[in-house]
């Protein structure tokens, strides 16, 4: 099988941007990232379909190469599923905004507990002192409420 370099590079660029956006804090950006990601993955299916050819329509046999229809069918399914999840996530972002006034992904409960414990933990200070460094400053509670 031969792969199309342009498609692979496009897909890589799109997925790269998607990863950057998914790592953001705001749910809307995460959402845009996920949409980009699914598009990048869909392009990968076109790569998997092999070389280009005529449209694979039954009865229009004019000779020459026919492109593989199966990856296109798979991509269609993936696009439909992606539409559904995007709509759901949008609704969740909206609800989150209704409830809290922002759509930032909120702190993991466990994470917040660990951070609060770390802020009070004498053991970590003594560890710092033993190394000859100043004790950690107690991190300020972040502005948003969790």
């Amino acid at each position, binding site marked *: 099988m031969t*792969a199309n370099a342009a498609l692979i590079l496009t897909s890589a660029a799109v997925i790269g941007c998607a990863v950057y956006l998914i790592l953001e804090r705001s749910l809307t950006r995460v959402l845009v990232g996920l949409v980009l990601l699914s598009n990048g*993955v869909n392009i990968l299916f076109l790569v*998997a379909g092999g070389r280009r050819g005529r449209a694979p329509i039954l009865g229009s046999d004019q000779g020459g190469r026919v492109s593989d229809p199966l990856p296109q069918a798979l991509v269609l399914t993936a696009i439909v599923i992606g539409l559904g999840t995007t709509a*759901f996530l949008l609704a969740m972002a909206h609800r989150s905004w209704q*409830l809290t006034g922002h759509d930032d992904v*909120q702190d993991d409960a*466990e994470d917040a*507990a660990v951070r609060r414990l770390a802020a009070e933990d004498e053991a970590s200070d003594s560890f710092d002192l033993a190394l000859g460094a100043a004790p950690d400053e107690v991190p300020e509670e972040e502005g948003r409420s969790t």
Partner: protein
Amino acid sequence: MTELVPLPVVLPLFGAGVTLMLAHRPAAQRVVSTATLSAVVGISAVLMVQVDRSGPQVLWVGAWPEPLGISLVADRLSALLVLVSAIVSLAVLVFSIGQGMTDDDQDTPLTIYHPTFLVLVAGVSNAFLAGDLFNLFVSFEILLFASYVLLTLGGTGARIRAGTIYVVVNMLSSALFLIALAAVYAATGSLNLAQLSERLAQLPGSVALMIHLLLLTVFAIKAAVFPLSFWLPDSYPTAPAPVTAVFAGLLTKVGVYAIIRTQTLLFPDRPLSGLLLCAALATMVIGILGAVAQSDIKRMLSFTLVSHIGYMIFGVGLATTAGYTGAIFYVVHHITIQTALFLVLGLVEYRAGSTSLIRLGGLARVAPLLGILFFVPAMNLSGIPPMSGFLGKVALAEAGLRVGTPLAYALVAGSMATSLLTLYALAKAWNLAFWRTPAEAHDTARTLSDPHGTVVRHGRHLHVHGSVFETRDVEEARRVVDEDEESDLDLQQLMDADALPRRMPATMVGATAGLIGVSLALTIVAGPLFGYAERAASDLRDPGDYISAVLPGGSR
């Protein structure tokens, strides 16, 4: 007789449509969904007997010529899992009907509960029956979509917060799954499992390894195997009790099932045993250490859920017939027992208003029946003989010892330690929630919620009226109190205020007791069940029957 194969998928979907039309007639909805799931239980029981007698049943949907269409395949493993998941979801449905009839919970709009629940069941059955990778992907999406809706029912703050993480993690894993599918198709030109079984073996090692690792990563996220399990304990406990129960029982097991298929059908010659065994050890030990640290029973059970996934991966990682037998038995045991325990917690929450160990106390006197209902599955989960948890663990340990590598010995030791720590965590919950008097719990809770109270602090421990608490528990108690929207009252105050229901509805108790009965019956039928699991495992080890049943003309 392949007509039965699609019914566990089609019937719930049909039922979902009917219940959606009956949105304004809750009574009719209940009848339809209960009848549908009962029918699915019956059909899958017949299917299982049939498969055991006459080999894998295959149906090519839409009657396309053989390697082109979508195939549904029921072999011994999938028929067993379809049956168990149908029984469990029926019990959960009856439980939730009982809950919905008695309290008018504004958080759970019942009109969409029944259709969504049925779609979830259809997705789970479809995942077990899928004969090609893309159909597996679609069934994952079906069950995930239903789970998104169920997890965020009512859209309260806590559920939206937990749901965001859950949805984003699962969308990412779906994208990874699609990448894996594209890679598989580009490398082999097929997505049919039986065809892949032959074609993947001919690939160069590095390509096959990449595809293998991609698939394992995707399924490990679904199954919550250790480095990829972070999302589970945070998202499950916030959902309504029956939803948590069905998620805990079924969704992670779908991931385990997919891992079993990957290991046996797709890559039988390259089992990556070392990687899976290390992941299993980490899952068991780290999961249970998380459970020990929790002060809310729901969160604690979510961590034991992660931890016990490790047992199944242990059996799969051994890649021997005995290992697969143990893993299959353990999956069946764990589906029933974990669901039963979460249902009991639903009852605790209903009867006592909370599942926090800080606030609960004296339940043994307040509701003795609840005590029995909690005690039996708790002991079963931690593996007290002669219950099925013990039998499953012994089978896995025996399989590990028979392999006899140092890593296998380490896993046997790890599984024993995990079993003990599970017992410790559950016994802690049992003592605090059931055997303190409500007054003691009340005093403790009041002292803890008052930061300047008479708490004696010794380093990391707090001494309150003779009970010792870790400082961590106190912090968490404050956090739980801060975060939850439930009332800040403990059991004593609620009882004084007469705010609690005095009796538990018979439907809820009946569904829970029924499921516990099923889990105890697993002990009684352990012999035949082990025989069946062993036959299923040897099918897995030698997929020739499966392949020739799917592709009678040979693979092209």
